[in-house]
């Protein structure tokens, strides 16, 4: 198929970027979206040009490196899919595709489609852990039973891949879903409950410091989350945060 690509090009964070047009012929249905970009880059390189920079690594939907705003939707049109899992069979010959980076004040552009998501790491560093030492001399793993429902629910929250689609799709650039997923995971497990108050306070504080917006319950984050993390997590985080503030 032949595609009309409109791609955001930006040399670095000091220069202004713009949308550039590319016509790409010979795209096959079985290619993944990123393989289509590889194909474009190969063409650009053979013509002596500079390839389009984009983040990617595992290409199986788990590392959370890939991003891309495709036709105005984070990770493209398919639900519950990362860009690397999106295949060109979902597009038609002659389609025009806009490809942009994830946009947020807290995600500055590094080059072309690559953004700096280290703000996410800093939120996690503020408290997304259990303060247990790594000596291995903890109690036996089966010493505290955890109900299957809680374990499964904690697992569902823990499947967040930290890609930032929630932020990119939110009109307020809120990182609530990301932060909430981690807070939820720990608040559901007995091991995480000990520090729940301080964790909620510290992580929310860091989230605000990074310049992410507030939540207005639009639900775009949940709709575009490639791992379909539930917005219920935000409710749980709000509860944790409120309780922590009351019982400070």
């Amino acid at each position, binding site marked *: 198929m032949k595609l009309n690509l409109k791609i955001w090009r930006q040399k*670095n964070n000091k220069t202004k970027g713009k949308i550039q047009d590319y016509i790409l012929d010979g795209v*096959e249905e079985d*290619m993944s979206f*990123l*393989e289509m970009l590889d194909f474009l*880059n*190969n063409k650009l*390189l*053979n013509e*002596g040009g*500079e*390839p389009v*920079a984009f983040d*990617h*690594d*595992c*290409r*199986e*939907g*788990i*590392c*959370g*490196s890939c991003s891309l705003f495709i036709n105005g939707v984070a990770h493209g049109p398919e639900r*519950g899919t990362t860009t690397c*899992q999106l*295949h060109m069979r979902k597009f038609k010959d002659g389609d025009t595709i806009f490809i942009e980076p994830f946009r947020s004040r807290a995600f500055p552009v590094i*080059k072309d489609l690559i953004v*700096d*998501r*280290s703000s996410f*790491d800093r939120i*996690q*560093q*503020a*408290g997304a*852990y*259990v*303060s*247990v030492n*790594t*000596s*291995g001399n*903890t*109690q*036996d*793993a*089966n010493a505290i*039973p*955890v*109900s*299957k429902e809680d*374990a*499964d629910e*904690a*697992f569902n929250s*823990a*499947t967040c891949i*930290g890609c930032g689609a929630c932020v990119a799709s939110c009109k307020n650039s809120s990182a609530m879903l990301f932060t909430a997923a981690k807070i939820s995971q720990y608040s559901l*497990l007995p*091991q995480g409950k000990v520090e729940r108050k301080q964790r909620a306070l510290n992580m929310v504080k860091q989230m605000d410091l990074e310049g992410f917006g507030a939540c207005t319950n639009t639900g775009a984050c949940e709709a575009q989350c490639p791992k379909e993390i539930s917005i219920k997590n935000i409710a749980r985080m709000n509860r944790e945060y409120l309780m922590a503030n009351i019982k400070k």
Partner: protein
Amino acid sequence: MDKENKVFSINELAEYLKVSKKTIRRHISSGKIKCSKVGGVYRISQDALDVFLNPDGNFSEPALNINPEKGEAKPFPIDSKVPFGSMENKWKNHKQNINLVSPANKRLIDVIVVGTGLAGASASATLAELGYNVKSFCFQDSSRRAHSIAAQGGINAAKNYQGDGDSVYRLFYDTVKGGDYRSREANVYRLAEVSTNIIDQCVAQGVPFARDYGGLLDNRSFGGVLVSRTFYAKGQTGQQLLLGAYSAMNRQINRGKIEMYSRHEMLELVTVNGKARGIIARNLVNGKLERHAAHAVVIASGGYGNVFFLSTNAMGSNVTASWKIHKKGAYFANPCFTQIHPTCIPVSGENQSKLTLMSESLRNDGRIWVPKKLEDVKKLRLKKIKPTEIKEGDRDYYLERRYPAFGNLVPRDVASRAAKERCDAGFGVNKTGEAVFLDFQSAIIRYGTEKTHSLGGDQNDKENVQNLGKQAIKEKYGNLFQMYEKITDENPYETPMMIYPAVHYTMGGVWVDYNLMTSIPGCYAIGEANFSDHGANRLGASALMQGLADGYFVLPYTIGDYLSADIRTGKISTDSPEFKNAERDVLEKLKGFIQNKGTKPVDYFHKKLGRIMWNKCGMSRNKTDLKKAINEIKELREDFYKNVFVPGELHEFNEELAKAGRVADFLELGELFAIDALEREESCGGHFREEHQTQEGEALRDDQNFNFVSAWEYKKTEKAKLHKEKLKFESVKLKSRSYK
């Protein structure tokens, strides 16, 4: 005399040996008698005494490197430092006897860790926890994205929670046997020993493992074993374990004990007076080179499967860190031991960039088959019939046929070769002829019937049984089925999956001693980057175990033995000529790529290298092809340096430049890989030489001549030099591996 747990004081020992106390003290201070200090007094263990009395005893015999031409015997040049004593006591005694660094002195010592996968992240966290100042490096934008995250099936541990006869010894035995007797026995035993701590540790960190309805941890079974010892979190175990280690790292970053450098790539090791003292790293965002100094450098940068271009590794996974230390003096061991994983999604087209694994755990419930009749194969390829239309009697469940004891759960190398054998015989079921079926229909019926029975439903209601069965399968493997459907556009609940083997893991890697130190003092290699634990084939769910064992529980102990001599060294300066020269060399190499006026992109060479490797050093190898491969790789390397095109500039984000550096290293490693495969004139584990097989086509090992680790020493101008570390098996008897 009772050999177990006997401990002597100096007085007792003097009496026992009928010598003066002074003599004993002299031997202790000269190091001839190893002893530990307990509460201020010296105590000598029976094992240490045995060593003293019998220094040339068979357990301390140096490995022999016999040169057949001259008939002379040379010992392996470096001590593997395997402790003496019985297998069960080695690690325990070793921990008691090695030197430690006091908490106050740890603050004065810096350690660099390259890579943040399971091994790197867990090592960074624990070293920082202990008090060392840690600098961690990863090329990804966040340490959480290292490729351990993609591991699916699970992690082994000898917990025996299921009460099905598991034990440390059995896990150890399975791993040695699974590795086809080419791993270092003592290392494997230690791995099995610490495996149980890993699970305790991870649960304490809040890793949400799968649980049963009673709230306890659930297990499943993996290939090559007869017990259920695999802990899992759906098909995302690697993700959950890595996020656990990442959280432990975050805690230390928050404490200021780890400095995290993401989007940084190590490009050179700096040695001062023969010791590893730092690295040159490139900041991938601004392209600038940086010098980082430390008292020790730990390489945890994973495997080199991407030498095949197409593999299940992440796009960025590379051999560069390992290769750079190899070129500085670290031996590279068993490079030809590569794991080809049997259950991956088949290659679909020319522009494919990577392959996707379908977890081995699927073989618990999936049955592998191809049609019995070639006419059915033809119809399948032309899409004239559906796989579900082929009658039960016309299907060849070839693993169940050939290996009745283990069936679909034979180890990976065996399953891969069996698939290749059927496809080579013309029974491949897709258009390229390189695919077999993995079928869940019988499992769906089995689970469905079970569920219907417990709900009191009608077992003849086929639709209901099917629905309940599919639900049960979804519970277990939901995300894997979804992943399959996204890639192939086929629904695996309705039609069998199509799978084919693909490169997945590399058992070979940097040579390390029992302390995990490479042949460069102060330079360590952990996780997939080293060679020690998996021999010639890795069992499923053992990679995660090894990564975390090395990082959490082994390296943090053993590194103290080396660093205890460094407590007075003080800060290492980055202004020394060694750092300057290393930086200059790296800069020149990078400039060379940018200034090269070539025309072909980096991927062109990488793909070409991958094709050579897959066709000539892949699932089966022979002398003629390996020799051809060596020459072709040499030619390709020359072509690469002449004609590669790298756009852009040095001091900016430049992915093509980073890729060029990685491919340059793959082009050197590939050659050593082929040389190693050529030298090893036997078949073992993942290394199958066509010249060495039984009549039934099974691998034929040669313990007489090849019971050793091939440790290659880099030589600048001549061929790499082979050193042989002879393997000795004290607890396990060498026998031919059978899964029938």
